[in-house]
């Protein structure tokens, strides 16, 4: 049998002319990570950026068959730099931004007159408020919110019937926000609080965790799991096996909810991991994944619509036909009420995936992924109406 190949097809596929160009800027404020006790896990210099670069490669490979070209510009702003000036320049070039910067920067950028009609991806700020009262119509979120992470963890604990929880919170603002998210979620899933304390030890835990931690955890009423809120991964790693009662640790050590982790290898994730390792020479982390997902979501929308118009792409991404294969076992899509990327959340240790939320039995009338984080009635966001 011979296949008829129309000249139209040949012209379209074999031609080298580019039908469509899509430029994206990865915009980063270089906030130095807080000092931590352990030297084992330095924050990579290219955290986030490497994910955007992999997204570029993945999109470009697909685009070559469709005559779609993609480019990535990278802008790094120092801690005291003027990120709005850089954002204005970037928006003058292209309406597509992937932002890896604190929430205040993100909101300021989204509020620029130049950002009207732009499409901005939040790939680093976990604040739940950005998906609620502080949402913006031109901002989509590919990183899970703290509420999503907390719900994933609490579903995991609830499905194990580990219902009684004690909580240790670190001293930093992020630790408190993470602790509040876990407490709210524990209440939502009817888990019981059995005591909490703020970690304010100045000690170097590498030397004397064995003395400090038993005393510190002795005061809690009996509990099934000890939660630790320590977003910078400063002291949490020294808690496990040093507690007064023999209890598993979860939250920021032990079993942790994560947007992404090197231990995720099912659902074809091994291929994503190895592509990333080849590119960056290190394992992929959550902010890398969020930046990759942002660029891939754009690429998927371009592939399906054949358009580079931000309004067309935004409306396709928020619509029912959009789905992104995110290597987490279920198709990813955006919540039309607040622009958050729906996604399964693996619960991981340093060595393995323990479970993946949503856990079986946590049902939802629409999409079970919406049992994680702000469901439509929970979100105060009105910018998407």
């Amino acid at each position: 049998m011979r296949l008829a190949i129309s000249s139209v097809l040949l012209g379209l596929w074999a031609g080298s002319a580019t039908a469509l160009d899509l430029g994206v800027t990865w915009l980063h404020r270089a906030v130095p990570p807080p000092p931590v006790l352990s030297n084992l896990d330095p924050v990579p210099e290219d955290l986030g950026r490497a994910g955007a670069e992999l997204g570029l490669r993945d999109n470009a490979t697909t685009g070559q068959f469709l005559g779609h070209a993609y480019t990535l510009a990278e802008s790094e702003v120092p801690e005291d730099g003027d990120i709005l000036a850089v954002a204005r320049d970037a928006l003058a070039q292209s309406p597509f931004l992937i932002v890896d910067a604190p929430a205040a920067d993100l909101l300021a950028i989204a509020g620029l007159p130049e950002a009207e009609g732009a499409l901005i991806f939040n790939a680093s700020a976990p604040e739940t408020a950005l998906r609620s009262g502080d949402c913006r119509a031109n901002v989509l979120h590919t990183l899970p919110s703290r509420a999503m992470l907390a719900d994933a963890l609490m579903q995991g604990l609830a499905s194990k019937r580990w219902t009684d929880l004690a909580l240790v919170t670190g001293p930093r603002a992020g630790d408190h926000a993470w602790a509040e998210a876990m407490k709210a979620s524990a209440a939502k899933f009817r888990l019981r609080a059995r005591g909490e304390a703020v970690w304010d030890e100045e000690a170097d835990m590498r030397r004397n965790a064995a003395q400090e931690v038993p005393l510190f955890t002795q005061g809690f009423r009996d509990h099934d799991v000890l939660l630790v809120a320590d977003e910078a991964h400063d002291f949490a790693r020294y808690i496990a096996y040093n507690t007064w009662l023999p209890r598993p640790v979860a939250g920021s050590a032990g079993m942790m909810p994560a947007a992404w982790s090197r231990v995720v290898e099912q659902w074809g994730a091994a291929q994503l991991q190895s592509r990333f390792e080849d590119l960056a020479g290190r394992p992929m982390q959550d902010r890398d994944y969020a930046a990759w997902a942002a660029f891939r979501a754009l690429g998927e929308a371009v592939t399906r619509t054949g358009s580079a118009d931000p309004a067309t792409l935004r409306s396709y991404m928020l619509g029912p036909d959009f789905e992104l294969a995110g290597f987490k076992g279920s198709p990813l899509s955006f919540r039309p009420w607040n622009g958050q990327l729906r996604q399964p959340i693996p619960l991981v240790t340093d060595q393995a995936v323990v479970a993946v939320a949503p856990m079986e039995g946590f049902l939802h009338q629409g999409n079970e992924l919406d049992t994680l984080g702000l469901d439509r009635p929970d979100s105060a966001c009105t910018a998407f109406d």
Partner: protein
Amino acid sequence: MTRCLTALCLILGLPAFAGGEIWVTNEKDDTISVIDIDSLEVTRTIPTGERPRGITFSHDYSRVYICASDSDTVQVMDPETGEILHDLPSGEDPEQFVLHPDDRHLWIANEDDAVTTVVDTESRTVIAQINVGIEPEGMAVNEAGSIVITTSETTNMAHWIDTATHEIIANTLVDSRPRHAEFVKDDTELWVSSEIGGTVTVFGTESQEERAKITFEIQGVHPDRIQPVGFEFTPDGKTAFVALGPANHVAVVNAETYEVEEYILTGRRVWHMAFSPDHAQLFTTNGVSGDVTVIDVASRKPLKSIKVGRFPWGAAMRPGAS
């Protein structure tokens, strides 16, 4: 496995075979489990290279080709002795392949490299490498041998490759994460399964235009868990069996109306399938439960589960002595 149609043509032209075997690759055990079709028991476990996935026999069944993905090679084995005769160059991370009707050229999807590699099994050399989309996996060749399909999982396309020129002549978009492809109905249709999209797309091969899209719905199973992967057709081309991955069911599809007639329960994460030589039974690999479900084709009921190695993936039939 993907060339079972060609294999069938051969078998059907010969006197009926007694018995026969189903060969299953165990991705995480680096072995093949050989199931005897008469006794429905594993009679041999054969070591392979690392992470064996795609498996297919030469037309005379004197050799079996195995994609040893993590060993970056295609192994050629003597099915009588289980001995590796030699390795073929395959490009990096060969996942799935298809044997051309000429019985000589293997077309291999290199998952990590975004290329399709063409290997001459006689001279043991690479003839060509063709750039395709990201994570190529599904491979199909038409009966005429003129077109090979590679599907790429992350690019979400079927790439149509002219076997004479080794050039891509068309790219057709499908739903997310295409996994498996087959030419059917005398090369007039191409079927492509999309794992994350949850669909099977049917193309007319003349126009390369979408003719139908098959969707699945199982009561009590969340739509996201319905992930079509491997599929096989009855010899008359009228019925397709579609493995639905973590939905733990195989769908029976009427290939003329494109409607699902029935769902058959299997083990967990059902991947690929092979028929017995008489097509009375269908064997499915179930990755997560580590077993093979035997389905009675006439009654469309599961008959038995057979424990094999860890993460069984590919399946291929070897007929018994005639």
